């Protein structure tokens, strides 16, 4: 365990060095991130200009979802997608062999291969959006709710990560994965909306098949203090299940790679 923490440290260091290597890009990234926050809010602002609530969600409440969406986007862009790009490149170039020959868990190595430090900005943006939302609601969040929301968010990150591992596993079979990751991003984009704004059938898909509800709506509800305990437990169980499934599929994909590649 301590060894893996140290490994994580070394990998983070390499990513940070890389980010600093290109100073102009580094600054530009940060600048761009601040601007990304604007399109995250515009759709919502447009909808709420004409009405006070969408489904049971008021504007202030919906901002909680946007806040978590922004946060998750930071996780996705900062931690998950860069590594995804690295694995796909490994598979394409055949350099995954080097990863598989290392005496450490291959899934861990590829998952931590690359970070985009600038995406941390999203975390601050998210906090800003929460503050704005609570301002709209005219109250402060309760500390207990923040705790529950954090747990719900952890479940969300695990789910997102697991979906990502499944996407990467697909790369072993199809090689051209860029379309797949675009699809992944397009679906993820739907997570900026509270899940209850979608029609019933879509909602079922987004809860159980592609668990957007788990990813943003649950943490938002938790922050508002309206998340049913059963939902929280469901989210945690779902996250554990997703993680286990992703692990199994990843192992099978690696086995296939080593038994078939060449």
């Amino acid at each position, binding site marked *: 365990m301590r060894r893996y923490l140290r*490994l994580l440290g070394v990998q983070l260091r390499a990513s940070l060095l890389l980010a600093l290597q290109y100073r102009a890009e580094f600054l530009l990234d940060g600048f761009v991130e601040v601007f990304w926050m604007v399109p995250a809010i515009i759709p919502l602002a447009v909808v709420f200009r004409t009405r006070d609530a969408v489904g049971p969600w008021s504007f202030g409440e919906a901002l909680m979802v946007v806040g978590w969406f922004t946060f998750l986007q930071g996780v996705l862009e900062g931690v998950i997608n860069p590594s995804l790009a690295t694995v796909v490149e490994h598979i394409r170039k055949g350099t995954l062999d080097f990863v598989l020959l290392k*005496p450490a868990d291959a899934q861990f190595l590829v998952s931590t291969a690359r970070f985009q430090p600038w995406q941390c900005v999203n975390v601050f943006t998210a906090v800003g959006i929460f503050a704005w939302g609570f301002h709209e609601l005219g109250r402060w969040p309760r500390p207990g709710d923040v705790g529950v929301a954090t747990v719900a968010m952890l479940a969300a990150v695990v789910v997102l990560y697991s979906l990502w591992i499944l996407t990467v596993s697909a790369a072993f079979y199809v090689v051209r994965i860029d379309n797949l990751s675009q699809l992944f991003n397009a679906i993820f984009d739907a997570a900026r909306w509270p899940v209850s704004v979608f029609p019933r059938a879509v909602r079922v898909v987004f809860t159980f098949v592609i668990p957007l509800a788990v990813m943003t709506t649950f943490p938002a509800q938790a922050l508002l203090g309206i998340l049913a305990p059963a939902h929280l437990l469901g989210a945690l169980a779902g996250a554990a299940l997703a993680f286990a499934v992703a692990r199994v599929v990843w192992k099978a994909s690696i086995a296939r790679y080593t038994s078939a*590649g060449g």
Partner: protein
Amino acid sequence: MQPVIRVRGLSKHYQVHERPPGMAAALRSIFHRTYRTVAAVDGIEFTIEPGERVGFLGPNGAGKTTTLKLLAGLLHPTGGDVSVDGHEPRRREDAFLKKIMLVLGQKQQLLWDLPPSETFELNRAIYDVPRAQFEETMRELTELLELGDLVRRPARTLSLGERMKCELCAALVHRPAVLFLDEPTIGLDVSMQATVRGFVQRYNERYGATLILTSHYMEDVQRLCPRVIVIDKGRLVYDGALEELVTRIRPDKRIVLRFSQPVDEADVAPFGTVVRDGEPPAGPAWTVSLDVHKDAVNRVVTGLLSKLPVSDLTVESPPLEEVMSELFARGKA
């Protein structure tokens, strides 16, 4: 001594999807696919003692790289047993992975945009090498490879040769006892090839590491590997000393003659087979190469010296490239 590598009846078969050309066949293949089994490696057996340097020879697609990957545990064998220092490679146990290294000349593990020293540091963490040992290894490798301050420049700014030296260094951070080198000198200029060869030999001598090398440059194999294993179409066709292989395939020696005045080919021909390299016979020549059976060399040289105006004479083994192409051509016949 116990062999470090033991391979018995090793085979690797692939299922290859096959379809005739054309649109109709392409559509048909969506529903009904036909597969053909290709044996990349087909029943190979050998053992290698600790500290040996062995060269894998064979034409493209012979199964050399597949065999290396089977030994490294990157591929699972279809049949047979492999044991490397008591481990079954396909299980890829940490203890096994810490003993081996694989360098692929056409692929690189160096972090592209960062200095190689960062890759070394990363590998140190992955292989769990104690700091003091790491520093010592780095000092030795830097000296053996003459790396200097290369390691502090971003990998993408290095030349191919400099990068290969750093690749070797990165792969040796954990001081592996078994080295798998797949085309380590590919694309390098002659002097860089010699540097890499020299380094590999010194590493082998200093640490007693076992090494298996594949290369397209016969010079690599000739200089580095007292023992060669020849693989053709997935089968082992020769295992033994390189010298012996050469005499077996080409029992001839090549006599290169220089004359003090032009000599007609017809005057030389009675002594042996004139080497023409596919060129038509020209008129009188200043130099002629002659292939002669090794047992007849003494007699022929004496005859040549007494009958012809020889100013210079050398006796060589035929180039390994020619020996190999002859060997593989025989395999096809």
